[in-house]
């Protein structure tokens, strides 16, 4: 003991002064760094798309501002159909996912089924959009699992029938795919909100009071819990809506092509051999921005309208709205959703090991590992790229997030609403609108460092999710530990590393697994920022999804799903062995 008191004073005065300043300086700077990292690429990308849209494209020797891009755009055949398709698929899929989420929550609120459904659906969350689209495509095709199960005993089909799905011109396949993919996300966001200790407890108590007053469980949910729950779900909903209206992977794999959705058409124009189409594509990107912005405004307006229209029914005292039947309907709907998801996954697995599998058969004639073997031989480099990019991006995202959250606690005020909104910015702005511009800037600055460019672009999409995931756990840390440690003489960086981080080991691993899953699933950012030189499992999967071999694309889809699962298994297993004593 005396040794410490003798040697420590000599050092602490000088070194702790410097180390505190350094660490605290870094921490205090990090929210601004985060903001810069999120705003600059997105805004820079948007501006770089704005200029060509108005005709300024030195690439094509056009340096006068003109409206020719927009003229060409208005004259595109089928433009209204493209926009209608984008709007309809985005809006309907988000609405459907939202309503089914609410119904599941309402019907199973006090039942143990909610936990079981949560555990069933959580792995679905990390399936990338491309893999989900491939799986849904297998399900609803005329020769898909549903037809095979019903043929030939029920339908009499010996050859695959003339069907409508996928690629139907109403976009129903896209809606189906998007709904099945977004439903677990919204459900888990809502359950995450309800799992917060004070809010969740308060809401459950209010629900119990409502039940005691005679309300049926579903009505109690809608009248009592939803008004408090909704504001916390608003941002995830808007993110889902923005993604659904501007996504590229789902409509590319499941959607029609006469004409396709607006985002897919823009991507084709940007990639077209005729380089003058780039101006039209930039104008189209602005149109997409307007469409998505309009949808977001529509949603917010509808929210206000619903609030006004239903404010009476909140207090009209009606206890029953046919809750019994709605409950049964919800049970049927949930069973349907889960069975769809399970069936498409089973189909996926069977295709990956299938030999010959002619149409009406429900099982393949032979099973073979040939597809896995040949795919794994080709997969070495994409796999390495996927893992490397994912790990670097996630590491960086976690460090930055932890520093920002620490700055909240060091400066003793929460990060501003502006920062919280900006964190959602890359999710709300359609990626097709700013990614092309961002790529152009990256090429101007640094052409050869494709890896760095891809990591930077992935970071934009990984940061919001990692931040969301870590923020709640970080803010829930008991501040008294930090106070006691500080009062014992520990510097802020020591408090951070030795007191806060060990307590956060499990949440950090979960956030890391989530960040990895998001990074593994990115398609457009990898394709554009890497200039096609960086192949990841997802880019390969999308290329092969519309390719010739269902079996190979099934193998890639399974790899896409397996990678994030490994991350989550690690996140589940490791906290059991490390830092056990630190967990609260």
């Amino acid at each position: 003991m005396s040794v410490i008191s003798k040697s420590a004073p000599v050092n602490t005065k000088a070194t702790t002064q410097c180390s505190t300043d350094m660490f605290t300086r870094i921490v205090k700077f990090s929210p601004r760094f985060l903001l810069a990292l999120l705003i600059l690429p997105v805004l820079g990308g948007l501006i770089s798309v704005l200029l060509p849209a108005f005709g300024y494209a030195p690439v094509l020797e056009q340096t006068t501002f003109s409206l020719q891009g927009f003229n060409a755009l208005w004259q595109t055949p089928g433009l209204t159909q493209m926009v209608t398709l984008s709007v309809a698929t985005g809006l309907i899929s988000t609405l459907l996912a939202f309503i089914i989420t609410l119904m599941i929550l309402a019907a199973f609120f006090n039942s143990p089924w909610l936990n079981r459904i949560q555990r069933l659906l959580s792995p679905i969350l990390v399936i990338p959009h491309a893999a989900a689209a491939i799986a849904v495509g297998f399900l609803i095709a005329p020769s898909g699992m549903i037809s095979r199960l019903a043929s030939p005993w029920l339908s009499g089909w010996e050859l695959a029938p003339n069907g409508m799905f996928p690629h139907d011109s109403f976009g129903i396949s896209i809606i189906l795919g998007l709904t099945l993919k977004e439903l677990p996300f919204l459900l888990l966001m809502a359950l995450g909100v309800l799992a917060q200790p004070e809010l969740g407890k308060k809401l459950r108590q209010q629900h119990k009071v409502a039940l005691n007053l005679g309300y049926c469980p579903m009505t109690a949910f809608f009248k009592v819990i939803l008004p408090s729950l909704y504001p916390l779900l608003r941002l995830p909903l808007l993110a889902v809506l923005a993604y659904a209206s501007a996504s590229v992977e789902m409509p590319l794999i499941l959607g029609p092509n006469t004409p396709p959705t607006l985002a897919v058409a823009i991507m084709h124009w940007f990639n077209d051999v005729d380089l003058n189409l780039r101006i039209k594509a930039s104008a189209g990107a602005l149109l997409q921005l307007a469409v998505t912005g309009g949808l977001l405004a529509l949603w917010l307006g509808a929210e206000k309208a619903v609030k006004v229209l239903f404010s009476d029914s909140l207090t009209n005292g009606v206890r029953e709205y046919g809750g019994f039947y709605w409950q049964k309907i919800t049970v049927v709907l949930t069973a349907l959703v889960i069975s769809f998801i399970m069936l498409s996954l089973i189909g996926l697995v069977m295709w990956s090991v299938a030999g010959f599998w002619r149409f009406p058969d429900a099982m393949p004639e032979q099973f073979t590992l040939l597809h896995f073997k040949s795919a794994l031989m080709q997969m070495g480099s994409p796999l390495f790229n996927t893992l490397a990019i994912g790990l670097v991006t996630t590491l960086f995202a976690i460090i930055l997030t932890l520093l920002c959250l620490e700055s909240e606690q060091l400066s003793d005020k929460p990060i501003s609403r502006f920062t919280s909104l900006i964190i959602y910015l890359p999710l709300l702005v359609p990626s097709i609108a700013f990614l092309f511009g961002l790529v152009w800037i990256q090429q101007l600055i640094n052409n050869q460092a494709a890896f760095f460019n891809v990591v930077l672009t992935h970071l934009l999409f990984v940061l919001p999710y990692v931040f969301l995931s870590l923020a709640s756990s970080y803010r829930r840390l008991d501040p008294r530990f930090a106070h006691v440690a500080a009062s014992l003489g520990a510097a802020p960086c020591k408090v951070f590393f030795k007191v806060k981080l060990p307590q956060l080991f499990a949440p950090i691993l979960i956030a890391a697994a989530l960040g990895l899953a998001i990074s593994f699933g990115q398609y457009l950012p990898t394709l554009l920022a890497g200039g096609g030189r960086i192949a990841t499992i997802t880019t390969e999967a999308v290329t092969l999804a519309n390719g010739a071999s269902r079996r190979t694309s099934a193998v890639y889809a399974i790899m896409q799903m397996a990678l994030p699962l490994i991350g989550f298994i690690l996140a589940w297993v490791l906290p059991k062995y490390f830092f056990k004593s630190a967990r609260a």
Partner: protein
Amino acid sequence: MFAIKFWQTLARYSFCCVAFCVCAIANLAVFSSIAFANTVINSNSKSNLVINTQQGSRWQQVQTLGRNQDVYFYAWGGDAQINAYIQWAAQQVKTKYNINLVHVKLSDTSEAVSRVLAEKSANNNNQGSVDLIWINGANFATMSEHSLLLKQWANKLPYFALTDPANNPAVTFDFGLPTNGMEAPWGQASLTFYYDSIAINGKANNKLPTTLNELLNWSAQNPGRFSYPKPPDFLGMSFLKYALVVLHQQSSENIKAQLNQPATALNTAQVLNPLWDFLDKLHPTLWRGGTHFMQSGAQMRRLVDDTELSLAFTFSAPEVPAAVKRYDLPNSIRSYAMSDGSLSNTHFVAIPYNASHQQSAQLVANFLLSPEAQAQKQKAHIWGDKSVLIQSTLTPDQQALFKTAKPHPSALPLNSIKRTLSEPHPSWVNAIMQGWQTCYGVSQ
């Protein structure tokens, strides 16, 4: 106590210092050895350069400058067999020249064209990311028009002479446009049809169509069993060109000659109207009623496996038996060629003007043209793509490399292609595409 603590601290700090020094020395050693090796290589190549410029041999210069580098080969990656062949070629050039061939898989060659154009606009004139590109037809026409390709290199490759360029216009003209040494030939393709022999069983109204007219009648009697990929997909355009050439087989010489001329506002309507009339009759009988067309030929093959389609076509005849062997097509599939003619063309590899590794790319292109590589490529179980080398220019040893084994039952029988049709002028591709988009691009 103080003394012990002092020695402990000193020991800890000394250990850290020693560890740091060891690491630093190790790093310095590694980096300096790499730098030394690089300077040795550079000085070797520089000294070789001095020697060779004295000797004046251009190809040896290319060989020395091209060794020990990376080549980024941008090529369509939608076929596992082709990807595997490119991996084999990569291993070969690694052994021969220590070149690292990286296959950048594209879903469409236009992606690479866009890339080179973006680099040209960013004034990147010698650090391009694309070193070698698999290309022909409209993409070649675009790159050539925008001066995006390196000129006069392909005709100087040692193995180019084996393609007999003086008597073989197929290797010096790409869709009617002269290549000007901008691209080296790689392989040849002809339009082949394949069908499910269980679905098309030869009974009444279900006989195999062998001409365009028979195809129309068969499709009318068996609706929803045939379709073609959506233009501007290469295979879809090829089907439309095949239909166009066949429909004009009975036309006057004057109109037939227009197909080899550029498409202009004057002759477009006259030449293309028969095609639109034919398609108006064909579309209602197609898969999905002609309201939706699959995006690519690969998707078409998948639909045959799904038994949604009973008849399809491809440019690469060996892809069919290869797919059957991989279980991607049922074993009831058979291939054949239309009796009124098969559209044929050559595909090439080209080097962008700003490629970072021009000499290495030329070495790779030369290897791809070698008898070993061409024979390997022609093997049915590897890729089956027809070689561009003329047998009469090869030595007997080289000819022996091309001997074939017993064919697969689903493969195209030897000498099935009785008639070849040559490609029309590339400007017709655009004309057909514009017209198709206007008539059928948006489903009503």
